[in-house]
């Protein structure tokens, strides 16, 4: 059956062998890794990390600070100051590695958990809280930092990213410079759960047939709320790319050197006009799906303990201490910086003004319709009728 003779279909049509379970133990997963959980640099035939230790120190700082911001936001939710928070705990390397691989003109389409990428793009962390506090639905201008608003409908943003990349293509901004790297690319973030969505699969098709400069960055954190990865797929997610006609690669999502190297290569490929890439960053959601979730009902504590050994920050700490001559002062300063940022974030959150309903009527359309103007006026008059009471 596997022997190829003229006139028979190519082997792509051969019966599919069911591969290893996607829920395989992490030590058996093959992926691109450049820094082991123990903090040792390793070589990979196709990818290398070509920045110096200063850059690694920068990544370390990024990861510690976004973890601290994330912890503060979780605390704010627990104290009733946020209605909800979606923690990125455990996914810092996936987000910082890919986020730091972006060029100034690249465009980002996040889910609602990309706080680390937002950090890399220079979005004020306080702006991220508005949505979760309920004072707005995304307070930043996407054009300011090339970072689109958070998208909550699962997978919808992958199509937006693909369309945006088609726009970059039409604007003629691909190629140029050394190796075509002067071009622009778009990156779409999504998760393992989203990989089942029709929109994500349509995005793969559109990106593929139009050869759009988009990188699909899937953080496979093993869990879609309570559903494990084997409820989404029977093959490793990165292998799906082959069926759509573009490269797919799996990277150790807890290795910031590897996520940087893999993202950089995929983005470069997109910028020079060679089309999309799917990156599966193999990681783990160390926290709950959101603060409303209770993972103790559906997953084992020993899984969590297992993944703690692969922590994205600890391995960089180990590397910097052992191999880069970095001393305690460096780490202590970053911890102190994190505490300062967290305190500012907390103060900023508590000071966010409550929104006024009447301010929102005017944003439904570019120009308020007569119907909306009437409703706004009626409500304002009704609300004003209570003035001077109790």
């Amino acid at each position, binding site marked *: 059956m596997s022997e190829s003779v003229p006139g028979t279909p190519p082997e792509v049509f051969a019966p599919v062998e069911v591969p290893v379970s996607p829920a395989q133990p992490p030590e058996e997963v093959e992926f691109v890794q450049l820094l082991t959980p123990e903090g040792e640099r390793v070589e990979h035939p196709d990818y290398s990390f070509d920045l110096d230790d200063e850059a690694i120190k920068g990544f370390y700082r990024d990861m510690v600070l976004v973890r601290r911001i994330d912890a503060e936001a979780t605390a704010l939710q627990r104290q009733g100051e946020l209605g909800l928070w979606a923690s990125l705990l455990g996914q810092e390397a996936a987000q910082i590695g890919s986020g730091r691989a972006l060029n100034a003109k690249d465009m980002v389409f996040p889910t609602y958990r990309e706080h680390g990428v937002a950090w890399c793009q220079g979005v004020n962390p306080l702006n991220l809280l508005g949505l979760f506090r309920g004072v707005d639905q995304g307070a930043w201008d*996407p054009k300011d930092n090339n970072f689109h608003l958070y998208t909550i409908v699962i997978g919808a943003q992958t199509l937006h990213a693909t369309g945006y*990349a088609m726009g970059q293509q039409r604007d003629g901004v691909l190629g140029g410079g050394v190796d075509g790297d002067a071009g622009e690319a778009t990156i779409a973030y999504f998760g393992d759960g989203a990989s089942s969505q029709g929109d994500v699969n349509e995005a793969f098709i559109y990106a593929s047939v139009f050869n759009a400069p988009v990188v699909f960055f899937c953080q496979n954190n093993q869990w879609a709320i309570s559903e494990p990865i084997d409820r989404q797929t029977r093959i490793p997610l990165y292998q799906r790319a082959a069926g759509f006609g573009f490269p797919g690669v799996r990277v150790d999502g807890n290795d910031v050197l590897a996520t940087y190297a893999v993202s950089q290569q995929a983005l470069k490929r997109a910028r020079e006009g060679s089309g999309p890439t799917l990156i599966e960053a193999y990681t783990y959601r160390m926290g709950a799906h959101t603060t409303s979730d209770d993972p103790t009902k559906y997953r084992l504590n020993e899984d969590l303990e297992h993944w703690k050994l692969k922590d994205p920050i600890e391995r960089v700490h180990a590397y910097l201490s052992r191999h880069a001559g970095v001393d305690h002062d460096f780490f202590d300063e970053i911890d102190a910086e994190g505490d300062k940022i967290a305190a500012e974030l907390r103060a900023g959150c508590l000071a966010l003004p409550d929104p006024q309903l009447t301010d929102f009527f005017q944003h439904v359309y570019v120009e308020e319709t007569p119907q909306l103007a009437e409703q706004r006026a009626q409500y304002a008059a009704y609300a004003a009728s209570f003035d001077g009471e109790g």
Partner: protein
Amino acid sequence: MTKITLGKGINAGLRAAMEADPKVVVMGEDIGKLGGVFRVTEGLQKDFGEDRVIDTPLAESGIIGTAVGLALRGYRPVCEIQFDGFVFPAYDQIINQVAKMHYRSMGKIKMPVVIRIPYGGGIGAVEHHSESPEALFAHVNGLKVVTCGDPVDAYWMIQQAIASDDPVVFFEPKRRYHEKAELDESVPPALPLHQAKVVREGADATLLCYGPMVKTCVQAAEAAVEDGRNLEVVDLRTISPFDLPTIFASVKKTGRAVVVHEATLSFGPGSEIAARVSEECFYHLEAPVLRVTGFDTPYPPSRMEEEYLPDLDRVLDGVDRVMGY
């Protein structure tokens, strides 16, 4: 002055918009070489190229979702949905993304996306090809919903929709694609996009209609003359937001109103009109607002569609009833 059909009016309007603004791109299934299944985009790809007249994969959510991205990049996408019943795979993108983007970004993001949908029955089609889902879009805040009733409006309204910084769902009355009229492109459009049009003045009752029912209602009004009735016909043109001042002025004048649409009766556009008219014209009304519409069933097999669709006689029956009060 040229004689054009409604379909050619949209084609010419698209062409004019593409010539005026290089950021206008047209996208959809079979719209390139074929020119669309109704030939509305005929010749555009040849003249504007494959980058601006995009034959998309056969996936409607993909059409609208990528149009969102193109709009974010500064383009003005005009999306064709091949038939009314095929828009629903894109419904999530339309409702949750296209319609809400301006609001949720507090006006920082504009969504100048036009979604063209050939709609309505009367062409003997198989199921999913004859539907009138306009109320499903008119209910969505953030969308504007318009429909043209004649070739001249078709030419101008598609250009006005493309020029709009709000997203516009543009319903095209597919059974009227071949209706003809004289068009003088040098005469600017008589009305802004969201203003209704009194197409026939009358005194006894008002027929409120749009899209494919405009012609039906004008014919009914002409037939009613034999019965000694002088009916006013208002082409609403925009379903969301309704041009209420024009509706109210007409109903206050005649005291009677019949809303006519192919869409299902319950929760249809006529329901909203009846509510608004009763609020605003209560002391002018001689009769309740009546509705002549499709029935509350799925669209029927086509051999029954002539009974299902409002026609001249059913409109006149509605007029008889509203005059009976």
